[in-house]
């Protein structure tokens, strides 16, 4: 198929497969424009572009380094939170009261308690027996934790009842995007640090867990995020629809995300072909021999994992800003983890171009399948009514959603079995 002779530099090969696939994608996108109108279609493209950033994050983790992240949703939610927190207006009801001071004090207690516990774990340096040290550290941790959490619960309860929530910082949205990436990277560092020396299954379990925890935290911390009450509208880094109209403002947003993708793409391309990228692939392909050559495997893996998480944070921030609403319950494993996974494995893990193709194509199908699934369900129901005299089951919309859940699952297993390298496979060359 696309296998090039090894002796030729692949740059000279005519990328027929790529051209055909992207041409088909272009036709499909134009078709959507013709059918659904410009404003709708541009919105779809912006969302697809945000998803492409997420997918690039996952493709470097999974495709470059063979690390599977089952908690993309968590990093998306973190990015979304940062975008919200930095960009929405300052809440004067909070800042004009004495609550910021109390909150600051509570956080200071938290810091102090953490330092005390950390100090206790070093007591053995002062000649305290190790076992005693462990007991002291654990008891201290439990007592201080309970004390601090009680103070914190008091303050956050006050904030909720008197000011609603702490509000935002009123800064430009892009500051939130950057911080979102950093937050996600920080959590990624924490998880990666623990799991990367172990079996890859453990990383999947841990990321799955941290994603649900992040979501639970954002959903229940009403003082910070308004929880289920949601926060909207979120300002855009570009002029909003009020100034420019839907089409123009969305196009502007689209061009921002496109520039981001281009920059990420270019940097990844450079890194991939640099010694660093070769080292990463060498580790993935043959861990034992890479280790034998004295490469610090876990260090490199941690770098790539954190980098992927940062991209997910940024992509999640861009996506949340664009949606204009921060709703912690809107972060779903299906939409924000598994959809991204399908994009990557279908497009071609480790192939950035394939990943971008996968992101746009899968998102297009995903969006278009919603009315289609509903239509098919309705067809089945009316067929059932006509032939068997069924009672139409209620909640047709939610049933159509479940059918999509099923299809995504089926797609994952089928691609793994029949096209494990995706539509645009990574071009593996000898590591030279």
């Amino acid at each position, binding site marked *: 198929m696309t296998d090039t002779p090894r002796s030729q530099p692949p740059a000279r090969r005519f990328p027929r497969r790529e051209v055909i696939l992207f041409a088909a994608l272009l036709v499909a996108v134009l078709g959507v424009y013709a059918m659904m109108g410009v404003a709708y279609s541009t919105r779809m493209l912006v969302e697809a572009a945000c998803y492409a950033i997420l997918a690039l994050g996952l493709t470097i983790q999974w495709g470059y380094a*063979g690390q*599977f992240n*089952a908690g993309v949703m968590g990093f998306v939610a973190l990015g979304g939170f940062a975008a919200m927190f930095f960009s929405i207006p300052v809440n004067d009801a909070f800042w004009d009261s004495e609550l910021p001071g109390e909150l600051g004090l509570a956080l200071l207690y938290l810091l102090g308690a953490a330092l005390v516990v950390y100090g206790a774990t070093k007591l053995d340096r002062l000649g305290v027996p190790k076992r005693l040290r462990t007991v002291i550290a654990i008891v201290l941790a439990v007592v201080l*934790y*309970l004390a601090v*959490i*009680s103070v914190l*619960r*008091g303050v956050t309860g006050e904030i909720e009842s008197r000011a609603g929530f702490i509000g935002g910082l009123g800064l430009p949205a892009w500051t939130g995007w950057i911080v979102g990436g950093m937050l996600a990277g920080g959590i990624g560092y924490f998880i990666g640090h*623990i*799991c990367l020396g*172990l*079996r*890859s*299954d*453990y990383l*999947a*379990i*841990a990321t*799955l*867990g*941290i994603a*649900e*925890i992040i979501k*639970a*935290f954002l*959903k*229940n911390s009403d003082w910070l995020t308004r929880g289920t009450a949601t926060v909207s509208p979120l300002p855009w880094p570009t002029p909003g629809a009020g100034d420019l109209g839907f089409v123009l403002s969305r196009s502007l947003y689209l061009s921002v995300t496109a520039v981001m993708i281009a920059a990420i793409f270019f940097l990844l391309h450079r890194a991939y072909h640099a010694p660093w990228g070769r080292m990463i692939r060498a580790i993935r392909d043959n861990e034992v021999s890479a280790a034998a050559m004295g490469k610090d495997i876990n260090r490199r893996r941690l770098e790539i994992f954190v980098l992927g998480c940062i991209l997910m944070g940024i992509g999640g921030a861009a996506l949340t800003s664009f949606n204009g609403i921060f709703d912690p319950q809107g972060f779903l*494993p*299906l939409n924000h983890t*598994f959809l991204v*996974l399908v994009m990557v*494995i279908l497009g071609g893990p480790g192939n950035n171009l394939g990943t971008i193709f996968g992101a746009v194509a899968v998102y297009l199908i995903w969006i278009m399948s919603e009315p289609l699934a509903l239509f098919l369900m309705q067809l089945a129901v009316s067929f059932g009514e006509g032939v068997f005299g069924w009672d139409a089951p209620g*909640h047709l919309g*939610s*049933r159509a959603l*479940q*059918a*999509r*859940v*099923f*299809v*995504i*699952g*089926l*797609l*994952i*297993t089928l691609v*793994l*079995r029949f096209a*494990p390298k995706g539509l645009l496979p990574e071009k593996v060359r000898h590591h030279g």
Partner: protein
Amino acid sequence: MNELVFFINNVIVAGSVTGSIYAIGAVGVTLIFSIMRFAHFAHADMMTFGAAMVLLLTLAFPGVGSAVGLPTAVVMLPLAMALTALLAVGVDRAFYKPLRAHGVKPIVMVIASLGVTLMLQGVIRLFAGTSGRSLYIGERKEIYRLELPFEAITRPVIVTEPQVILFVLTIAAVVGLHLFLSRSRLGKAMRAMSDNPDLALASGINTNTIVAVTWVIAGSLAAIAGTLLSLDVTFKPDLSFFLLLPIFAAAIVGGVGHPYGAIAGGFVVGFAETLAVFNWTVLLRPFQQHFPGWLELPRNLAFVGTEYKIVVPFFILVAILVWRPTGLFKGKVIT
């Protein structure tokens, strides 16, 4: 002393209930891991599938239970176990076996099991709906109040009928599993394959049979665990990942590939959860007068709110991965 009864009801009883459920789930995960060497992410939805089968069967034959004197759902459990076992073997044939034959890395199996979990979720919710439902249909949950023979205690210890059934079934499952693994030819062959798959093959053990047996056991246990969970509270079709994390944590705490360890791990995680959400103020309040005046007991002295329950198994998981990745009972495979 009523506080003590409160503690028994909210920690001892509740912890044993959750612990049993996690233990049975974790045994399945650990068995699959020891035979096929991958973390089976579809296990929680297999549990839900089992419970959904019980729900559908109970809806179809509502009167059966009263004829036997047990809740209908419990009477339907063996059938649901068989169906879930069938599902597990079928899923393996259709989705995991071809990948195994290709010799893919374990992590690819993990991703495939995530695909399977989504498919199961879709199917379950398509037929059983998305809202919680009681498995007691037209029946009453018996509640047993045990008065303690102390004068200071006026409140009873409360145990419900499904909880009694749960304890009986858990003990039966554990004893049955133990006898199977230590006495039967197939059970020994399963342990042999978990120890050394190549040598098992060289001894003439048909590894395909062992794989199928593993799925039958794991599927049946998943059906039991899911049904017990749904009997104790209600059938909830959307627990998936919230169940998966404690079960994996339990399997890893017990040492992956170590069935008895998984049982212990299940109880460790179950009790840790109930202890963490328990409001310790209740126990400390009787001693309030002994505290110095400046120390006022907060009303809520729980480690985490119930909404953050999932943090507990995660914390346990992280702690065990950091300090003792082989688990408390030294598992087989960690790298």
